[in-house]
């Protein structure tokens, strides 16, 4: 009978671990997006007029050298956004000494965000200029005096620097795309923002009934990830810690079993 019990215990434990493994693999899939809107073909010219794009969607814009092009996208906690920009220059605008194209990323408070990796700035010495900027992982909370990326709107600014007057106004096309790597629990910190750093958040929430009315009233930013903002309490640390508890319990049972030998009372006692 005891052998059967032992077997059953092992069976239960195995089932539990299998379920856990399934959870581990399923978690990142929950963040994946499925919506497929038409790509945006314009760019804003300031923070206020930035064109909103979604992560994973390529936006294009025709512009002139010297323009400051702005886009915005939402990024949530646990993501590590990478912004990629490609500028296609006509013959007249390429090979200009001194001109550099650069991409800057700002958070919802218009604070410039540093790039971990990526060529943020390149000289305009070819027909296409590829730029990239990988932000630090977005955290759910940070101290007010730190500049850590927080969930909310992110602004992309693309422009040329070091322009001479003669280089101004030449037609160019720009493409930008923002993608995120899921960092998961490694960047899961304690605490959450009451609201993500979306500009105008408090103004918009004043009249939620108007929300459904029509599509013409302006908002500073309506950025929101596909699946809405994360509520802030989910992290794969629950799984790690839970699994640790299970394993500890099993190890405890194992240790206990070791001291009991084969489970029978010593004979002849």
């Amino acid at each position, binding site marked *: 009978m005891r052998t059967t019990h032992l077997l059953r215990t092992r069976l*239960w*434990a195995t089932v539990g671990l299998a379920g856990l493994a399934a959870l581990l693999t399923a978690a990142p899939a929950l963040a994946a997006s499925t919506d497929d809107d038409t790509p945006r073909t*314009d760019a804003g*010219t*300031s*923070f*206020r*007029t930035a064109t909103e794009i979604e992560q994973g969607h390529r936006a294009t814009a025709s512009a*002139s050298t010297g323009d*400051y092009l702005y886009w915005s996208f939402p990024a949530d906690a646990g993501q590590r956004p990478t912004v990629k920009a490609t500028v296609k220059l006509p013959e007249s605008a390429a090979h200009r000494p001194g001109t550099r194209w650069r991409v800057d990323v*700002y958070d*919802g*408070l*218009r604070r410039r965000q540093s790039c971990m990796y990526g060529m943020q700035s390149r000289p305009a010495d070819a027909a296409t200029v590829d730029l990239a900027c990988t932000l630090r992982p977005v955290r759910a909370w940070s101290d007010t005096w730190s500049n850590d990326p927080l969930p909310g709107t992110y602004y992309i600014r693309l*422009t040329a*620097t070091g322009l001479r*007057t*003669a280089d*101004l106004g030449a*037609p160019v096309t720009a493409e930008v795309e923002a993608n995120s790597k899921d960092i998961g629990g490694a960047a*899961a*910190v*304690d605490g959450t*923002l*009451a*609201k993500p*750093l979306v*500009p*105008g958040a*408090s*103004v*918009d929430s004043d*009249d939620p009934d*108007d929300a*459904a*009315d029509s599509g013409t*009233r*302006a*908002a500073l930013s*309506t950025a*929101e990830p596909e699946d*809405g903002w994360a*509520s802030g*309490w989910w*992290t*794969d*640390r*629950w799984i*790690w810690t839970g699994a*640790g*508890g299970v*394993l*500890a319990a099993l190890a*405890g049972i194992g*240790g*206990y079993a070791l*001291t*009991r030998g084969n*489970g029978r009372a010593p004979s002849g*006692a």
Partner: protein
Amino acid sequence: MITGKRFAAGFCALFAALSMGLSPTSAFADDEPDRTEGPVPKVELLLDASGSMRARDIDGKSRMAAAKQAFNEVLDATPEDVELGIRTLGANYRGDDRKTGCKDTEQLYPVGPLDRRDAKTAVATLAPTGWTPIGPALLKAADDLKGGEGSRRIVLISDGEDTCQPLDPCEVARDIAARGIHLTIDTLGLVPNTKMRAQLSCIAEATGGTYTSIRHTEELTDRVGQLVDRAADPVVTPVAVEGAASCAAAPQLKPGLYTDRTGFGEHRWYRVDVEPGQELRASVSVAADRAVNNDYGVLMRAVTRHGREIVRGSEAGDGRTDAISTGLRYPKPEQDDDDAGTEAVCLQVSHSYAPAAGTPAAAKGKPGLPVELAVDVVGAPDDASDVAAFGLGRGWWLLGALVLTGFVGGLLWGWVARWRVTVWRTS
């Protein structure tokens, strides 16, 4: 053993609950974009009809012909909700008198709901004639766009620099922008030379607009169309406010978007009321609407009434830029005593732009540089009690440590139990 089985079963149930109930959910139910009917955007196309527009150097046609073709196509594609007008400069006076020539600007089609046929007929009558009074025309165009709360845009198409000095069109543009009527001037230069580029891009820069060089009809059509479409995009129009020189006199701001002007070396103070349990979020951009020195910065400080600095945001930069911006947030914790009331937080904004060498004296004084200030007051965040989320752990070291402790615990438990059995048996 039965105890062990129950443990295992319990954990399985826990994980089932985890996997079903605890998926990431939205805490912000705002699915629909939050919009309602807004003010009407207004656009005026300002076309240079000076004598030089006769030059046949755009796709083999005259510049005027190219402009007419572009206008016709743009008029066809103009969005319904845009009020569009057309003004010419230098279209009527043929003489040599500079004074008369520099007043020569006429409204060809008034700003209002667009009648495409009328507008096209008006465009067809255009003939290249006189001077290039850009400055006066900009002033008139700004008057044409008066009224309403929507965004305003002037699209200036010119093929030559202003011939009506000493009124610098760049200064005119800056003055118009400083009226706080949300007016943007976009400029297009037809087959431009360097001096013209400098002037037109200066006009655009002064109002936050764009400058484009045009060499082909298609470019002209596309660009004008794009700019008109841009005007149709709903944007938040900021509210003009005048910051004070000290905290005590600072104007009180509610959440929203504001504009102000601040000169070189000036500080601007604003005041925001924050209740306990609320978080103040403020961001500021100071735009460089004229030639400035290569290195610059911006500083925003949140200060208590008594002058204690709470938090600051600062940023510095170098090289060509449209604006420099920074932001800060200040969560005011919930307080237990009831009499802890609203706190007036003062925001101090300063910048370290300096006028570039060789700037005309007018550009050093008023109007100051445009400041855009965004203020939000939202609920305060949860304070972090631990570095990691909920104090949970992660990683193989954690698993190893837990397994080891579990195992040691099991062993001890077993030994104690054995020892107790032995003691019981022997007694």
